[in-house]
């Protein structure tokens, strides 16, 4: 598939999960393709980085489900800040462990999973839809019932994938990519290189967490995570990220930046 093929399968109003973490191994070429499309009113679920910032800047997001949004080396994401401070996006802000639990519940086809996280905090007051659940056993515990975060689509970026949707991460962290895929109705993997399945054996089998049963489409996207990191293929492009963050502060600079950024062929 191409990025445009993936976007053609998405619809306005969908709930879309984006893999990676902060400014690390984000499916940026797919995010750019969404920015070029007429998709709108998305609910985005993410361990947020510039994917969230760009989609907010492009006015693609109605609701954001998140635990944090950060560029890592630049702690605060400028477009996220601007959108929050303008009241321009509805938010479901959660503890990041609750986010993992919600994805896992969806992957397991459970309505919720219990957790202690959230008790006593304003997670429960800013999200009045959240409920607690009493343990049916003798302990008497009252815990947060983290609802399943079901996704219409998941977008993740991998180092390698085969044409069937098996994907391999070669960096130190799988993040939550397989959970995003398993929680989604349809999951799409972009990758640095499509390879024959037999070549996966060059790295340990533990790198094969994203599997074809959870994936519906594969896109070959060399440098597809740029400017976020995609270890060990490349690190974060800090100079580019700094230009991104600086351009965000000024409407004219941003217009120029985003026009050039989106004109990069995919």
């Amino acid at each position, binding site marked *: 598939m191409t990025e445009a093929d993936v976007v053609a399968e998405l619809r306005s109003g969908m709930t879309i999960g984006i893999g990676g973490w902060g400014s690390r191994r984000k499916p940026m070429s797919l995010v750019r393709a969404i920015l070029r499309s007429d998709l709108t009113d998305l609910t985005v679920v993410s361990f947020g980085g510039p994917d969230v910032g760009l989609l907010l800047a492009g006015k693609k997001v109605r609701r954001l489900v998140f635990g*944090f949004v950060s560029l890592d080396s630049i702690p605060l994401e400028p477009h996220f800040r601007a959108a*929050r*401070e303008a009241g321009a996006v509805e938010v479901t802000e959660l503890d990041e462990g609750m986010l993992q639990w919600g994805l896992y519940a969806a992957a397991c086809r459970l309505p919720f999973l219990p957790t202690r*996280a959230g008790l006593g905090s304003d997670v429960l007051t*800013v999200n009045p839809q959240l409920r607690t659940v009493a343990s049916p056993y003798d302990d008497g515990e009252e815990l947060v019932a983290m609802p399943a975060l079901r996704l219409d689509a998941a977008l993740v970026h991998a180092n390698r994938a085969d044409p069937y949707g098996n994907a391999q991460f070669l960096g*130190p962290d799988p*993040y939550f990519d397989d959970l995003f895929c398993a929680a989604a109705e349809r999951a799409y993997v972009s990758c640095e290189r499509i390879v024959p399945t037999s070549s996966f054996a060059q790295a340990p089998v533990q790198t094969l967490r994203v599997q074809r049963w959870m994936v519906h489409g594969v896109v070959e996207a060399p440098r597809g995570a740029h400017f976020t990191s995609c270890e060990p293929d490349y690190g974060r492009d800090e100079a580019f990220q700094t230009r991104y963050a600086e351009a965000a502060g000024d409407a004219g600079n941003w217009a120029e930046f985003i026009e050039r950024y989106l004109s990069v062929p995919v």
Partner: protein
Amino acid sequence: MSITRAEICVVACAEAWRGDGEILASPIGTVPAIAARLARATFAPDLLLTDGEACLAQGVWAMGEPPPVIEGWLPYRTVFDVLWSGRRHVMMAPSQIDRYGNANISAIGDHARPTRALLGFRGAPGNTVNHPTSYWVPRHGPRTFVSTVDVVCGVGYDRAAAAGPSATRFHELRRVVSNLGVFDFATPDHRMRLASVHPGVTVDEVVAATGFSLEIDGDVPQTRLPTGDELSLIRTVIDPRGTRSSEVRG
């Protein structure tokens, strides 16, 4: 070379992990990161530390350098396994903290439309009800030590108690370290107490810089000075480039 305030803060933060045993120390910020390495290199040798990415690392190493020996794999999702097991003690850096230790890292102002959006809840709600938590405030002032935080991310003693036994079961706030002093919650109703002032700081200064009334019992002791060994570890092994002084001046 005289002892700097930053070095006193490093030791005061390191003391948070004394006696913790074989648990994961998770420092957020420069001074806490130096402090956790110092604690392990001296009086808390069983602590687990990460390389700041996805691995657990042995040994003592300099800020900005990779660690010498990897002893385990700890990608983000397994941090929650450790966290929910309780075998972790985090030191976070709140933008606001109140007298019961409620802490805010999410937003200043109304959550629906903040005047200043910050990082988000991150792991603060789960951290505080699952395992010990301490806090580090590099610039102590009345806008950080506030009477009421705008968003409760890290759960304080009053909110945990109101939420019931599942919230209080593993809840424990150890200490708060600022550039002016050390604070704990060792009072009958867990209000924040001034435990010590750093050398060169008066109690009045701390009181004036705090937006709520601190519990103060009797003569407030001074925060202890680093030992010679600790100073040498900080200056020559852990932080030879002096990154600590960018977080705390003087």
